[in-house]
């Protein structure tokens, strides 16, 4: 029986791969969570997750044990939902798991290989298991290995690979069959800085090609910040924060972080009287968003009037770290 996915490729799949083509963003959400819950025995691991994700690169963040990997496994169909469900490209993971897996690539966190195989043989086997005919699988295996930078080492046995090479081999097997969604579980684990940069560069290239969406699970905020457009922060099995990092970056106004000595509250109220928003943060610090027409010299003038010393003054934006730390502090959990 012919796979219908092969016969009726959607426009998204057949458009020429010119980089950064905005029309390639799928119309249906890449992932939709509909009250997805997963329990192991009686232990709830994921609790009533809801949301829609449409970005080309979705970052999954959370402390260890938060449920990031379980969420990926549930979406792959490894763990059946105890209640609720999820949809990937509009297909239900409960009923269409096989069709979904035909469009997904997965790079697991742990070392996962098939023993006694050369890398090209391994990647070819993975391509064939995804449904590619043997000749096409071999061709794509070579291409994928060149793409990730293992072209010269592709005839070596996997057992002889360094950790960085193994990570790249795992990436190659995840994308050899040309999936539309790629799950990357801690792809930079154990990599040295150059290898990490190479891995992140590859992820960005795939993202920018517009041909595949990426879900990147990591506990390294910088990796996610460098690669992702949407962020899902999971904490104790629940969604703690969802934010569209791109929109956040666009909307995120610059603010002034001011370190002061002296009576802070009157100073802040005087700034507010100018029409500026402010927030008191730590004991000596406050954040101020300047309104149009308000200059820094106005702040110094008010400070002099209020007998407040300005010790330090920096323009800043909220970083992903700020968002993450805030998410971890909110609610009943702790870091």
């Amino acid at each position, binding site marked *: 029986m012919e796979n219908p996915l092969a016969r009726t490729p959607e426009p998204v799949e057949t458009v020429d*791969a010119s980089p950064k083509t905005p029309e390639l963003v799928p119309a249906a959400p890449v992932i939709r969570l509909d009250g997805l819950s997963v329990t192991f025995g009686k232990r709830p691991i994921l609790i009533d997750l809801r949301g829609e994700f449409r970005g080309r690169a979705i970052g999954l963040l959370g402390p260890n044990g938060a449920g990031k990997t379980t969420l990926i496994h549930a979406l792959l169909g*490894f763990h059946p939902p105890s209640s609720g469900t999820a949809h990937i490209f509009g297909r239900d993971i409960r009923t269409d798991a096989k069709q979904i897996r*035909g469009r997904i690539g*997965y790079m697991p966190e742990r070392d*996962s*290989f098939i023993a006694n195989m050369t890398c090209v043989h391994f990647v070819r086997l993975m391509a064939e298991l995804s449904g590619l005919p043997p000749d096409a699988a071999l061709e794509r295996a070579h291409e994928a290995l060149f793409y990730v930078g293992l*072209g010269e080492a592709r005839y070596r046995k996997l057992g002889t690979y360094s950790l960085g090479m193994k990570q790249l081999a795992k990436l190659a097997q995840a994308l050899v069959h040309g*999936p539309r969604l790629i799950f990357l579980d801690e792809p930079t684990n154990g990599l040295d800085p150059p290898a990490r940069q190479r891995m992140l560069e590859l992820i960005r290239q795939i993202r920018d090609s517009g*041909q595949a969406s990426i879900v990147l699970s990591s506990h390294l905020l910088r990796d996610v910040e460098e690669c992702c457009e949407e962020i899902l922060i999971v904490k104790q099995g629940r969604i703690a924060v969802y934010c569209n990092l791109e929109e956040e970056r666009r909307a995120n106004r610059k603010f002034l972080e001011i370190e002061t000595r002296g009576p802070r509250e009157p100073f802040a109220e005087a700034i507010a009287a100018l029409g500026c928003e402010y927030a008191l943060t730590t004991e000596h610090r406050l954040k101020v968003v300047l309104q149009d027409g308000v200059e820094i010299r106005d702040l110094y003038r008010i400070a002099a009037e209020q007998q407040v010393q300005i010790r330090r003054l920096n323009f800043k934006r909220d970083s992903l770290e700020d968002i993450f730390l805030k998410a971890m502090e909110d609610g009943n959990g702790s870091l």
Partner: protein
Amino acid sequence: MAVYEHTYKPYAGPLTPEWSRFLIIPRHAYRDVFKSKLFTGFFALCFVCPLVMAILVYLRHNVAALAVLNLKPGDMVSINSGFFQFYSAFQSGLGFLLTVLIGPVLISRDLANNALPLYLCRPFSRAEYVIGKMSVLMILISAITWVPGLLLFTFEAYLEGGSWIASNYWIAGSIFAVSWVWIILLSLLSVTMSAWVKWRMAASAGLFGLFIISNVMGLTINGVLRTRWGSLINLTVIMKTIEDSLFRDVNTMDLPQWMVLPTSAAWIMLGLFLAFCLFLLTRKVRAYEVVR
């Protein structure tokens, strides 16, 4: 995603039929299996018995050749159900040795290398994975049991003519059925052992041990309690009973009549044993083991 382009591009070509994908596993497994000269030699030796039996069949019908060898047709073995039953039993024994050689590593290597998530994250189910692994053995054992067996039967039928076929056609079915009972038992037992026992030697020993220990225990229970029901745990007796029934033969093991197991009981026990193996496989063949 051409090499020179270095860009990511999805695959939009044709896909293989879903039903045939389990065959990818044996195709790739044979590359490794036949790299071993020991195994290749053993596999070639497995065809000696069918070849010798084909020569016997030929000689039985060739008076000129018998005269050269100074033999009479009566000196030759008769070609009947017993002849083919011996063939089936002998080749099944070789099938067991073949299983011991390649079976124990079929799943254990994948488990040791965490490879199961890589199989199961694709449009490839657990059932297809298990069937694919079993196929590695099923195809090889088929190649040394019922395939040459049916060729041998066809050869004999061709030389004997229509009347022999009319009265012995059921032998072909028996060769096929007995071979498949052994094939299913050995392949399922082997992949189960491979899934649960990590070390190759231990798994090989386990395969031998299962037949030997169940035989000793069954015979002991029969002997001590003066009953036939101890044979219900004796895999050798169960398989022999089924084999005898399929070849319309009775008690080829020459057991005392009170120890002979009813055929239906043998079939039921075999079914239960296979179901238990499947249960064990479903417990172990998972992308990730869940710690509850």
